[in-house]
């Protein structure tokens, strides 16, 4: 276990190092991309450019600049934004992370519950009209883009029906969990629903296929021959084995979403999360912030993968000794 954890940790470090180098190179070594020009503004004269270059340390050798940036980011923790001078990167991320986590964790619980329920129900009712109906709902869920669905939800809850049915819906924004748990949940309810619709559809379709395959396996026939109830066969045997691939997919999706992939939902519902932060930084080519958020995202993806590996070994005994 210790060896496993150490190996995991090392590979995580390596991945994060590689990503940081890559991000750094994309913004500083790509021909035609000059951060100084962006910072100095349009049509800046050469003198201003040179001054900006010097002030931001852009005239020093590339490896030194990389190391300096990393030192500020990780050791001194005082890396500052290029755009809003004085605004530090790390506090921004620390502030944005709980928003994203709140959004993604809630949505994940929702989509796993709904996806497993829909997928299992469809698989057991194969051959009836219910199965294609559930799968149709799943496809609809998958094909609704979050930005569109979010806007429609906003339109209905904030405008059209705000006076009647949805008068209890608060305006878009975020309230911290520690400030007011009730308001926190209320503010996040529709973002959760919007984000989970897509994933619930995907997971339901995937799980249905897995369960249908499992129900045709020999071990299910053995379970029937043992005289077990259909319910027990479904839950303890078929579903239990079908969850293995679902869990590994879930780890990847969850990591990516926490890392900022929930951007569209965050923007639509005005949630100041990591996705929004990255998005704004990208628009301004604010490299320090980009570097911070990208490393943060990589950290979560790697962490989620490590957790999935551990969970996988718990779920599937065959993977334990491999």
């Amino acid at each position, binding site marked *: 276990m210790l060896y496993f954890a150490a190996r995991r940790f090392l590979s995580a470090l390596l991945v994060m190092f590689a990503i940081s180098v890559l991000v750094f190179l994309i913004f500083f070594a790509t021909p035609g991309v000059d951060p100084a020009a962006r910072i100095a503004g349009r049509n800046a004269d050469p003198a201003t450019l040179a001054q900006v270059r010097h002030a931001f340390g852009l005239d020093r050798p590339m490896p030194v600049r990389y190391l300096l940036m990393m030192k500020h980011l990780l050791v001194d923790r005082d890396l500052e934004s290029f755009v809003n001078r004085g605004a530090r990167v790390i506090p921004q991320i620390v502030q944005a992370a709980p928003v994203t986590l709140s959004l993604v964790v809630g949505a994940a619980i929702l989509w796993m519950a709904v996806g497993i329920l829909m997928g299992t129900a469809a698989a057991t009712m194969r051959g009836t009209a219910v199965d294609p109906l559930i799968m149709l709902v799943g496809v609809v869920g998958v094909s609704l883009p979050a930005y569109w669905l979010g806007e429609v939800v906003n339109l209905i809850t904030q405008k059209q029906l705000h006076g009647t049915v949805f008068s209890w819906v608060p305006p878009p924004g975020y309230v911290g969990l520690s400030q007011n748990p009730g308001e926190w949940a209320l503010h996040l309810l529709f973002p959760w629903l919007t984000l989970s619709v897509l994933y619930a559809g995907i997971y339901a379709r995937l799980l249905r296929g897995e369960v249908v395959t499992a129900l045709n396996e020999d071990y299910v026939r*053995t379970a029937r*021959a*043992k*005289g077990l109830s*259909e319910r027990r066969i479904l839950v303890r045997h078929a579903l*239990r084995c079908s969850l293995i691939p679902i869990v590994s997919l879930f780890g990847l999706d969850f990591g990516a979403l926490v890392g900022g992939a929930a951007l569209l939902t965050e923007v639509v519902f005005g949630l100041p999360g990591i996705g929004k932060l990255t998005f704004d930084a990208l628009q301004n080519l604010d490299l320090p912030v980009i570097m911070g958020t990208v490393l943060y995202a990589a950290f979560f993806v790697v962490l989620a993968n490590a957790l999935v590996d551990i969970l996988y070994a718990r779920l599937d005994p*065959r993977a334990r000794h491999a």
Partner: protein
Amino acid sequence: MPDQPLLDVTDLRVSFRTRRGRVTAVDGLSFSVAPGEVLGVVGESGSGKSVSMLAVLRLLTNPNVTVSGEVLFRGRDLLSLPDKQMRAIRGREIAMVFQDPMTALTPVYTVGWQIAEQIRAHEPVSRKEAHARAVELLSDVGIPDAASRVNAYPHEFSGGMRQRAVIAMALACSPALLIADEPTTALDVTIQAQILDLMRELNARGSAVVLITHDMGVVSEIADRVLVMYGGRVAEEGPRQAVFHVPRHPYTWGLLDSVPRVGGTRLRRLPTIAGVPVSPDSLPEGCAFAPRCRLRHERCDERPELSAAPGTPAHRDACRLPADDRTSLRLTARAAATGAAAAEHAGRASKAERADKADVEREAAP
């Protein structure tokens, strides 16, 4: 009533709805199993052996399957029993062992857990008690160090050990009837013998056994009675001695003649049954075996009924040949079969000498 059969199947029919229309896999099968008896069910692949046994236990869950007939187990019709009562019979009174032990166990639970699950499904015992019984059962079926192996996962067992574990599970509630669907087919020969010993031991403890196989050698070792199936129907049935020594149906002749013999004169080439097994979607109106039979005649277009051999009412067969002259007819058929095989052999010999050599080596091997 001591003579009442344990399992009495009458006119069992199983058909599948397919794209090409109805396909009949089991066509009016009737047989019975007495308490404590070993019934060997033999036939080629696709003769309806497995399907009929799955139908008996109502394990054919495909919605396209139709099962009809009567399956009396201890006087109750299994086909019309409510699901809940059927579940109480499955695993407790009738247990089933399947062909492939590699996939028969759920991969994510320990072997002991799965045996305990079976016990707890039928008896109100504690988890601990069930676990202890699982250890006992595993050691009964010859798993060494059962107390620690009980916590192993199926993938940590070899094929033979898995089959033992499956059998241990089947024995968990001391069933009155064990249906074993080719329990040895997927295993090594040495393991096969051990599994058969296990079946025999179980039978000695009082359980009746239905052993499905296509291995005539296995049947001749263990069965009290033999049921030969072809095309979803009974071709011949009777006590083992009678079926093996005075077989009456041409299909049984073919099966017996195609088993290599250890003693006696060595044949140049093993006779086979000409043609391919009848497909369930094109069952002939008359005798199912007629298209492959060397002795067929006009009356074979009419479906033959099971009828007893003269003098031995327990030995019955479904064939249109004259009832009293089967032994000499068999010799004629065999001569024709070996003649055909030899002619085929001679024709091929000149062309493919290497194949011939391989044959000789194979024949010399045992």
